[in-house]
């Protein structure tokens, strides 16, 4: 899975916008959107929010968790705990990136938030690497990881699976059967 595909999925998350135009309900396959009243918050998918934002048709209201204080708390908790802590949004990384890239002017303390989310991400990825490491060194058959987001799984998937495959190959080469073949 490509990160861009994950991002695509993340764009289905809803976010509140304050439109500056007036439009009746829009009937789409994915569901009805609107009605859009100027000045009145309305929930729309991120893709639409960004589109409207780029056309300067709305202001985006940052999600509740996208707040420096809250993220700081999460970061502290993430650093304190050994396991993965629950994250406010399953697409926190993608949403942060999307919203901050396109609507930084609507988000208070955008830079701070960017740093905080990056910190959280780094902490979690480090944990992920660590657990992958212990998984491999202890030669466990299965492992369970809670509260991982799609993007996080996606970053480690190829690497972990490939390395496991190679290790399996290497190990099976060490098997007695294959050892015999070396004897020939």
């Amino acid at each position, binding site marked *: 899975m490509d990160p861009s595909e994950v991002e695509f999925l993340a764009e289905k998350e809803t976010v509140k916008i304050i439109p*500056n*135009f*007036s439009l009746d309900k829009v009937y789409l396959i994915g569901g009805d959107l609107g009605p859009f009243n*100027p*000045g*009145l918050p309305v929930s729309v998918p991120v893709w639409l929010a960004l589109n409207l934002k780029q056309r300067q048709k709305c*202001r985006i209201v940052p999600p509740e968790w996208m707040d420096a204080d809250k993220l700081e708390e999460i970061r502290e908790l993430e650093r304190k705990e050994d396991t993965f802590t629950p994250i406010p949004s399953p697409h926190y990384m993608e949403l942060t990136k999307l919203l901050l890239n396109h609507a930084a002017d609507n988000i*208070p303390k955008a830079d701070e938030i960017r740093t905080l989310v990056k910190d959280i991400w780094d902490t979690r990825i480090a944990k992920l690497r660590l657990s992958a490491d212990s998984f491999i060194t202890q030669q466990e058959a299965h492992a369970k990881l809670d509260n991982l987001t799609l993007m996080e799984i996606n970053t480690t998937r190829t690497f972990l699976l490939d390395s496991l495959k190679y290790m399996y190959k290497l190990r099976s080469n060490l098997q007695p059967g294959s050892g015999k073949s070396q004897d020939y």
Partner: protein
Amino acid sequence: MPCERRPMRYGHSEGHTDVCFDEEGKWIVTCGSDGDVRIWDGLDDDDPKSINVGEKAYALALHRGRLVTAASNNTVQIHTFPDGDPDGILTRFTTNATHVAINSSGSRVAAGSGDFLVKVVEVSDSSKQKTLRGHEAPVLSVALDPKDEFLASSSCDGSVAVWRIDEQARVTSWNVLQKSSDVINSKSLCRLAWQPSGKLLAVPVGLAVQLYERDSWSHVSSLSDDFITKAVNVVIWSPCGKLLAAGSVGGNLAVWDVEAKLCVERQKHEKGYTVCGMAWHPSGVQIAYTDTEGCLGLLDGVCVSSASAQKSLKAPDTKAAKDYDALFDEEDDGLLDEEASESHSPVKKNADAEGDDEDYDMIPTTARPRNRGSFLDDDENSLDTGSVNVDRFSENNFGGSAEPATAPVKSRPAYDGPVPTPRQKAFQPSSTPAHLMHRFMVWNSVGIVRGYNDEHDNAIDVEFHDTAIHHAMHLSNSLNHTMVDLSQEALLLACEGTEELSSKLQCSHFSTWDTCKEWTVDLPKGEDVCAVCLGQGWAAAATSALLVRLFSIGGVQREMFSLPGPVVCMVGHGEQLLIAYHRGTGFDGEQCLGVQLLQFGRRRRQVIHGEPLPLSVKSYLAWMGFTAEGTPCFVDSEGVVRLLNRSLGNAWTPVCHTRENCKSKSDHYWVVGVHESPQQLRCIPCKGSRFPPTLPRPAVAILPFKLPYCHTATEKGQLEEQYWRSVLFHNHYSFLSSSGYEIDEEAQNQASKEQQELLMKMFALACKMEREFRCMELAEMMTQSVVTLAIRYATSSRRMALAQRLGQLALEKANQLQGEVQEQEDDDDEENYGSAKQNSRFRESCGGSRSRPSNARAEEEYEEEVEHEEQMETEEPAENRRSLLNPFNKGSRSPERPSPKPVNKEDRVNPFKVSGPGKSSAAPSGQPRVANVLDTMTPSSRKPGALPNPLSKQNKSPVLKPLVPRPKSKTQATLLQMNAPKLSSKKSEKEATVEKLRPVEVPPMPPAQDNCENRKPKTGFQLWLEENRKNILANSPDLEETDVIKEAMGCFRQLSAEDRLVRSSVCVGFTSPVTLFIPPPQHIVIFTKYIYIYCINIHLFYQTETGYSGTEARPFMVVLSSVRRCYIRTGHH
């Protein structure tokens, strides 16, 4: 007598504080751990002057323009008072000073420090210092002897020492205190105090206060009380020296009469925080105290004995002989003073209050909440508000005149009655206070106007919610405009006049089509704009001269009129202008507001003539405006939203209590708009304040409306609330239509449908609860068609008595309806003036009758019936149209007429209603299933024979004869009806029907089924056939019997479905109604009864069974109110 504890107020950030009065008692001076010294003009001062003296201030002393503070930079410094300019450093320690004291002449300052030293410094020459060494721990407190001889000090080493200052020697010491390592660890601050006469030294020791005698230094007595549960922190002497007050760590305050050793006063800190600073007002009436949370409190009216002593001492020449009236005047003066001071410095005052978000009571949009706060707290102390206010006013008197203590003492018994409330100031709705540097000047449904007034910029930002209206604007605000309103057309700004400049009104008419967008108007000198508003095509400004000046939006001066009182708020919407003003003086926290609602446009009139505005108890007006639909609405400071109920004689109905939605007591909702459909209260949630800050940009939230009905936890209550809310929030339809606006008929029908549904639900609920009388009451509110549903419900739940009564009710309603229609027709015939009034009345009643049938759609399953009925109803206008000869009337009505049609088409699913090709559909080539009654019936009856197919027309003219019922099988009848609409697709079936029908004509067919339906008379087709037989025969004389019938069938089919139904129903009504019924027996009973009784009175209940499609065969039950017209048309009645 008990003293009054005034509510605590926020003074400093959390931490140690100290307090004192200046010599005259005019100012309260506090210092705190934020390093500031604040100078309060009484407890109610919202804008104390702040002097920064360091990072932290530990203690302060004040004497004649000298403010001595102990700050965290280890110094004891002097500032001038009250200006606050630094005036040098008195002395330094190696660590911070813990306490400072100044002697009564102000010549010496003593300070104790954390480095175990006590220093006594000459103020005039700081080099003359005396250092008192001997304490073995940080010094807690120092106290200078009034006679300048001794100095007492207490220390953390547990000792209290008395020093002879000149000799710098310790005279005596007592080891009475608990030892501790530092001031912060000490159990008590152990503030010592000398009696003003110097005779006694008071030392707080544990729970008691020990008194030591001068010179002998022996322990004289000990003052204690059970009330004090924790160590005493501070003691102070009253100015007269007779009383001693102590404040404890537990927040208890006690006052003793020292001679009698009697505790005369006990007060508890409202939150139980540690009292760490106390000061006695020089007049002896008040004690100010501060706590370790940085709050300042005041005990008022402490011990009158002392005060009166004071009085006799200090003010022997007071106005003892003044009579009560004079006192009253004096109080009024006080009030005026206060008001004046408030109006002079609102900016400063509020600036401070704005900084403290926690204390919501202190964030005044006007001066009022503060007063109210004190009122409320007074209730706790079971003191009447009158005296409280008198105190407050007297306090002001201290400030204004130099007559301390006289006014309160004398006026207390003088006047206990209600006290006038300061009038609330004029404001613009949805604006934040004008003193803020960044504020919302207006936030309405059009846009947001923000004002900036800081060092670099004085500007106004205008932003539109909908950028389609106009792009954002940035204006410089050189005139210092404070009042703004924004509409779709223009931006209106106004400023108050200054010394040089007169008050200005500036309008930026951005929607104009010419190039000059701006116009300004200067008001006459001395007349200031107080409130402005914009309507559609006009602007209004209320001025201090009690005038309302109207302008056109282009700047033409229009009407002007006088207001009965000073304006509070003014809003416009469309052609309506709503003004709230002071109609008098409110008492005890109430405002006395009046409201006027004016309507411009075609019919200029005053809708509300200055009636009182019903505010909540002890609240003031916080917001006023119109809903998006144009209904006046206002919000008071208690958060109650009230809407004008036009259908209830312009009464105000509370529709929402915003504070109920708040999580915390200090949260508020700042209303920005009200919408009736959809029902939305748009507001901004404000945490801990009454209004939002401009940054971060606040988001609008939507609150639902909820009328404060009883028992809303029960289903009954909920339904009632919903019903009345629906009624209230749809009042605007009638208003809009009466004032000539277009209204959304569909939404209106939807609304009335919803109301009828709710009524039906309530009816069902009442039925279930066996409340038949209540059922009747509910039925009276229903429309006639819904009553029939109710009848059905009642009968199916076997409530015969109820059903019978309902039947009568239905009849009455139908009669009424008929009466209306009749009247309307008469009116139309008689009064053909085509005047607007006439038209509007007609329109209204027309709308009423039209909406009525649609109400019947209370339940889905009855849709078809209603459909049917509606078609009947639509006949009515058709009828009218025919009877009308007046082109005026026709013209005026014609735009109205088409409205029911689209509704029909969109709303109903009726197989009959395949939109037919209109009139031509009657032609044989046309569709067999013809659609609209209007289309088919109207033309045909007007000009019979003109159309290609004469047969289809002639069916209108023939006289309907009640025929001798012939036995007829039910199956045939129904089969015919069922098949009729879809014959084209079922030819074979049709043939069969025709075959079966044939015997009807010639010899009476023997009964096929031997049931109760045997008595069934002719079907509609039969009747029709009989009527038209001659015609058919005339047209084609050589037809055989079967062919005649076939021909007739064809013609009959070309009739509209309604026509056929009418025919069927008429046949039912005039022959034997029972025959067409296939319902449960009880229905028959009731309906036959009705029909027997009332068929003459044109009311006909009929039930038939018909099939629209192959799968659906639904029972029909409809009140045929318009059958009469069939008769008229057919000339039978």
